[in-house]
Structure formats: structure tokens, C-alpha cells
């Protein structure tokens, strides 16, 4: 029997642009045309002012480590513990859950507020996940 797989996102009409973006190597956010609020996760209206006039834009992919846990047990299918489950605050404002790559999964290496940049990890030919690594320079 095959190993249990890592949970795979299934896009909806409201989130398809996000997953199309990651596949193209872009982290896409949305900005309200009326009040300029930048938000995540995706939806076709502004959760701050309720305007339906919103635009999709390519985010910088830069942010910092807001908080995390290092999960030991139980481990999710497809993960080898210990692994960090992080929340990244993007320079544009929104936060998102992610994993931190190219970095030891230890409290010493994972310092709160450390600068991060987005990277893209293809799960299959349909879904590419945005993950983050310590920013260079």
C-alpha cells in the first residue's frame, strides 16, 4: 500500500488564481480597489469594507517569522517529525501558514522575526505550495 500522502489543497473558484499563481512561481494576494486593504485567504470581496471591486497582484514574497510550533507527534501524513509549522507575516500585511525550508527545524535556528522569502514546492502537476526560507543577505 502507498504511504499516506501529504494533504493536498483542492482549489475552489475563489482560490483558483492563488494556486495558478504558485504554479507560475508567484505569490498572489488581493487588494481592495476601494479601501486598499490587502488580505488573505482569497475571496472576491474585501473583508474590511465589503467592496466587490478587488484586484489580484503579485506579492513581494518577503516577510518574517511571526510564530511557529515544531511538531513532534502526532505527525501529519507525509511529514517526518520534527518539523516546524510556521506563520509568516508578509511585508504586504497578511499572514499565512507555511513551512520553513533550508533551515534546521530547531528553536535555535528558528528565531522569531527572522526575515523570510517565498519558495515554491511542487506537490504534483496541479498543486504547488508556497513555502518560505531564510532571506538571503
Amino acid at each position, binding site marked *: 500500500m502507498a504511504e499516506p500522502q501529504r494533504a493536498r489543497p483542492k482549489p475552489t473558484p475563489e482560490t483558483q488564481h492563488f494556486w495558478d499563481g504558485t504554479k507560475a512561481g508567484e505569490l498572489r494576494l488581493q487588494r481592495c480597489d476601494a479601501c486598499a486593504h490587502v488580505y488573505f485567504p482569497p475571496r472576491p470581496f474585501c473583508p474590511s469594507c465589503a467592496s466587490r471591486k478587488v484586484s489580484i497582484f503579485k506579492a513581494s514574497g518577503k516577510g518574517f517569522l511571526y510564530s511557529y510550533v515544531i511538531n513532534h507527534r502526532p505527525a501529519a501524513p507525509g511529514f517526518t517529525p520534527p518539523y516546524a509549522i510556521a506563520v509568516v507575516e508578509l511585508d504586504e500585511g497578511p499572514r499565512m501558514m*507555511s513551512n520553513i525550508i533550508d533551515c534546521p527545524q530547531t528553536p535555535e535556528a528558528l528565531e522569531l522575526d527572522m526575515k523570510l522569502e517565498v519558495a515554491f514546492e511542487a506537490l504534483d502537476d496541479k498543486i504547488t505550495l508556497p513555502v518560505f526560507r531564510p532571506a538571503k543577505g
Partner: protein
Amino acid sequence: MRRNQVAVVGAAETTELGVIPNASQLQLHADAALNAIADAGLRLSDIDGFATAVETPQQVCHYLGIKPTWVDGTSVGGCSFMLHVRHAAAAIEAGLCKTVLITHAESGKSMIGKLPRSTPADSLNGQFEAPYGVYGPPSMFPIPVLRFMKTYGITHEQLASVAVVQREWAAKNPRAMMKDPITVADVLNSRMIAYPFRLLQCCLVTDGGGALILTSADRARDFPRKPVYIMGTGESVETPMVSQMETFNSSRAFKTAGPLAFKEAGIAHKDVDHLMIYDAFAHLPLFGLGDLGFMSYEETGKFIADGNTRPGAKLPLNTNGGGLSYMHSGMYGMYALQESVRQMRGIAPAQVPNAKISVCHGVGGMFAASGTIVFTNER
């Protein structure tokens, strides 16, 4: 809502708590309900209002043989029962029903007849959290705590002391699962679950249930038990995605529900004799003490570590031992409510002498939801 117009007149937990391999989840609902009905001196046919969570009202009502004219299936996680109390009080005051039964039960350990919990791959959680390896509450609930610690200067030792102090309370409760004394070192040397939290900072996983019966304060005088009045209530929700909380330095749902209940009750913090703060994990009492306005967030860790919430100290907190040591079937809110009612009746195993006001604060679905009830035994 007007204060002290509705009272708890029946309260009971399941006959057994802990590991119950001989009953399904649905039967545990019934066991708790029958115990509460006996406690109130009622018959099932007296119940005309019903609320429960996870299981549906129709499922439990049919199993018990109840024919309600008012139901509430609010299911927002472990604090659902705080919300049920609030909604039931409003319904009784509005005349929609007279006698409300609220049940909770969960075969959390034995998993008999327990409904599966799943996260659909096309839900927002399924798309934006599940792929990063979250797997159950231990991997999600503690995610804010490192930020909270850094912002307010809270130490690992202080967070460990939450478990130590609650074990002291549990030792006084014969029905508590874990009663042996522990030290801060024991906590910090226990098995790592999700850094920074170790085994002894995470709730138990047990089987059990509980039920409450509410009626109008005027009717409550005719019941066998001392009425426990609903003095104030509050509720709110924020987000089912822990990553999308407004901040990790507090809980918006806590900060909405808690002050609402205090305001409705017309009480100040110094009036609180007894406090329950739902402790699925060790950081929750710190969030609660800060968000409910008992003290600054910076003081919360030291306050507990210095022993101010211990037996005999000035702010008795989680006096049954909490989710960390008493029991935690998955949705602990009902057990916190049961302990508040016991304290107000004056029959708790670790009774706080002369306690007149009890605040019971719940959390649900990680930090998704919150409900706060202020109880009093004086009308």
C-alpha cells in the same frame, strides 16, 4: 439579557469519567442527561428545550425520547456549551421554552460511535493550513504561544507552572484523571509534543460527558438543589484558521466574550471568587487572565508561577484540575461549567470557601470561538 433571571437547577457529569469502553458517545449523552434530570428531580417529559453540539439535537432528543419546542445545535467547539447556556437563558426569558437540557458527551478516548472529524481539501483550512502538516489540536492550538511569550516576556518555566498548579487542584478531586504531584522540572522534561509544549502542557484525552438543566429563576426556588443563577454572559467567534487570528498577543473572541459577560453581570474583577479558564493547553489561562482584564499580559505568567491561583490563594483557578489534569474528552467546556456550578452550590471537592461569584470562560475550535458565563448563588 437581564441578570439572574435564569438558573441552573440540574447539573451532572456521566456516571464514569476517564476511559469508558462500555458506552457509545450517544449513550454517554443519555447517561449525563439522566443524571442531570435525577439531580433536578425532573422527568424527561418536563424538558421542552434542548441544546447540544457535534451530535445533533434531533439525534439526542430522539434517543432520549424528548419532544422539544426549542433546540439549539450551536457547534463551535469546546465552548459550545457556554453559548448554549447563553442562548437557553435568552430563550427561557423570551418564553420559547421553560426547561432546557444541555448535553455534552464524547467518546474521545475509546472512540465508540464518535463522528469522524475531517477537513475537506477544498475548505480554506484544507487549502491553506492542512498542507503544512497540522494534525490535530496539539499542532495548531500552541502556534500563537511563542509570539505571546516574546511579546510579554513569558518564560517556559511560567508556562510549565500552569500544569503544576492545576495538578495541585486535581489532587483534591477524586474524579480527576491525574492526581500525582508534578514539578516544573517534570513538565519541562516530559515528552515533547509540539515545541514549546510538552506532554504535561497538553490536555488529557478521555471519555465522558455532562449535562445542565436551566429554568427561570422564579421556578428555580421549587427545585431540590440550590439554584445557581446566570448573572452575565458573552460570546463571540473569530476564525477557524489559527493562522488568521488578528494577533497572537491576545484572542479577539476572548476579548469580546469576556468583557460582555462582566458588563452584563455588573461585576468588577475583584468580585470574582472563583474562575475557570478552559485549558486545553497551558497557554490558555494566560490568554484568559489578560483578555478578561484581570491583569496585564506581562503579569499573567508570573501570577500563576508565584502561586496566586493555587488552593488557598487569592484567585482560585481551574479548581477541578482543568483539561490538563481533570478530564478532557475533546470539548471540555461542559466540565468547566460543571465545576462552576459545584462551586456555587458549595459542594465541590476542592470547595472555595464562601464563593459567591464564579466566572467560567471557554474557548472552542482552537481560538475560533469563545463563551463566558458569570454564575452566582445569590439572586
